[in-house]
């Protein structure tokens, strides 16, 4: 009953976390990567010696590529970002870099493809959120006392926003330090967090629903409190297993999915946290409001 007793404290903690996240997003900003903006990125590596950045900038100047961002990678490499380039321009860049440089990867994305991806991301996001709202409303359609089913849905969505904002806020902070950009995997991470976060909340709500049906406990507050006591070990256990594999991905997995796995880890952690320390207290608070009105 600890969580329910201190429900207001926990809700305030969550509110503070979300405010921090929003602050981080608006302060640091989210840099869009070339997936969305269009542009090109080449990763090159030098075999014997790496020239300094100024030399490369000078070599690339005659190609009139507009703004060129050159960042060192590893000990022998550079990543070079420019606007979307044609095949001939790409060949020009490679020649300018000298024969000592080998191209490890190259991506060029036209602005129309980027714009399409932005649109698709937004549509997917809306679809996932709608899908989840309908699903929760459907699952909890038979629960109407004392809190009506759509309120479970609403609270699940509030929890969802909480679970999403915190990793995104953390990402904004990371991107400031490490220069990571918003790419397609970022979108996948956010959408996956939505799915996973809700599944945790559902496990808790499911137990509350069952306890309401069984009717062992006198008050709604007690029902929620006891339900939490019954499920928190399992909630922590289930998310620990996912976090274990995610950490394996962060530490040992491919470089391209590191940030993705970090975001999911944060999402998973706060997803579990919020299903216990946010969703359930909110449910009780909503119920108390209802009673107060009557």
């Amino acid at each position, binding site marked *: 009953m600890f969580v329910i007793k201190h429900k207001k404290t926990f809700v305030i903690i969550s509110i503070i976390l979300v405010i921090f996240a929003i602050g981080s997003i608006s302060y640091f900003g989210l840099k869009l990567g070339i997936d969305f903006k269009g542009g090109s990125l080449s990763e090159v590596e030098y075999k014997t010696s790496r020239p300094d950045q100024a030399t490369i900038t000078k070599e690339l100047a005659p190609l009139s590529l507009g703004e060129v961002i050159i960042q060192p990678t590893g000990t022998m490499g550079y990543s070079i970002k420019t606007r979307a380039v044609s095949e001939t321009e790409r060949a020009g860049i490679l020649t300018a870099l000298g024969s000592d440089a080998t191209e490890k990867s*190259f991506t060029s994305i036209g602005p129309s493809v980027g714009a*399409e991806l932005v649109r698709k991301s937004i549509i997917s996001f809306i*679809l*996932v959120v709608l899908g989840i709202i309908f699903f929760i409303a459907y699952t909890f359609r038979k629960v109407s006392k004392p809190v009506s089913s759509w309120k479970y849905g609403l609270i699940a969505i509030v929890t969802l926003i909480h679970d999403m904002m915190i990793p995104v806020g953390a990402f904004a902070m990371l991107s400031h330090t490490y220069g990571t950009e918003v790419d397609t995997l970022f979108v996948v991470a956010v959408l*996956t967090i939505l799915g996973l976060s809700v599944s945790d909340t559902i496990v808790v709500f499911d137990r509350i629903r069952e306890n309401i049906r069984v009717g062992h406990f006198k008050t709604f507050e007690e029902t929620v409190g006891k339900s939490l006591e*019954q499920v928190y070990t*399992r909630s922590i256990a289930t998310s620990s*297993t996912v976090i274990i594999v*995610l950490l394996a991905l962060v530490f040992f997995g491919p470089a391209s*999915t590191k940030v993705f796995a970090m975001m999911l880890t944060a999402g998973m952690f706060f997803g579990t946290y919020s299903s216990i320390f946010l969703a359930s207290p909110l449910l009780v608070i909503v119920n108390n409001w209802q009673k107060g009105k009557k």
Partner: protein
Amino acid sequence: MWKTRITALLILLLGVGVGFFVYKSELASRSLPANKVATGLARFPFRLGLDLSGGTHLVYHADVSKLAPSQVKDSMAALRDVIERRVNIFGISEPVVQVQDGGFSNAGEERLIVDLPGVTEISKAVAMIGQTPLLEFKVQNPNKDAPQKVTVGKDGKVSPITIPDPYISTDLTGRYLSKATLEFNQTTGEPVVSLQFDNTGAALFEKITRENIGKPVAIFLDGQPISIPTVNEVITGGKAQITGSFTPEEAKTLVGRLNSGALPVPISLISTQTIGPSLGAQATNAGVKAAIIGFLAIALFLIIWYRLPGIIAVVSLSIYVALMLALFKLIPVTLTAAGIAGFIISIGIAVDANVLIFERIKEELRSGRTVFESMKNGFSRAWFSIRDSNVSSMITALILFWFGTPLIQGFALTFLIGVLVSMISAISITRLFLYTLNIKKTTRLTNFLFGSGFSSAKAMPVHAEQQK
């Protein structure tokens, strides 16, 4: 009881069999020489995406603005065929050429996507794809048999002789061909390929035939002679026929190739992505390493925390992993770095279902039920939680799959299959194995074995729990 045990044994054997298949087919396909056609088990390799195998991903915008809407689909299919033929000339294994419909999701743009595994020299690839295949009409080189002077140097070396091309180019090329059709000779029944030139082409052809009566005129496609008919008379009106000893199939292919001389739809390159082979190999190794470490860590967690059911969960998780890998090979699923991540996460989720069940069983035990009853109730009650908690992940996976970029689809597909298979394996395989143990009595040992963490599953009086 024996029935359950035999089924359990069969499932176990099946699991081992599936694992064996994955292992053997991997060995077979790895040891396969690059130029050999795969047979037997080698037909089922893991299909690696471009970010793992290294290669080039090209996206073309097809300009269909000049076509009637009803023609778009056919033209795009024709375009796909032409490009596929050109790509096949590279001799790479499993190139993928696909049309992306100009639906709602991509702003009505018709696109063509070309994936070239193992190709990192994009300039060459782009040049070959973009190039119009060359249909040329050549005439005999008059200097073919001209004598050449050969000198022997003081050091005894012979000066090199050049073998002149037997044919020389004319101005007539595929540019002037309006269409080729397949016909059959009415008397002999032989297949005949008819060519129709446009006006300029007709004039050129007339000139060529006039100058070469009784001599061969060679038809070259991409620098290779495909037919060398001999001119019998001057041909006006721009109609030509290629007869030869080819089968109807060969003639049909030829017609297709000739008609593909020009692209049905103009295309322009809008996106390219190349990943070097070393980067791909690094990503693959890291992905496999993460998967193995993740799996071992989870196995350890399960056994330490859940004891006996934990061991069973590890067995059923192993079967799950074997099943998933076999599915990746059989469907086949193109694995990308994101796809491997999806699979690894699905391992974590597959365990979730087991955890939900075990916790439920423990709870039932605490309320004083026997092990058998607890298992029965545990499974049936946990099922709804498992189903409900997975549906939201499946909704996400389905929408991500619709999203459509290969990177995301790679993740969505492995994640979706993972969630689906995990539900089945957790419910059916774990249950079967637990029942096989056939524990009827509740003793201190069973309480320990079914307990978790620091607590045993000892029955607690109900009032004690409520006093807390």
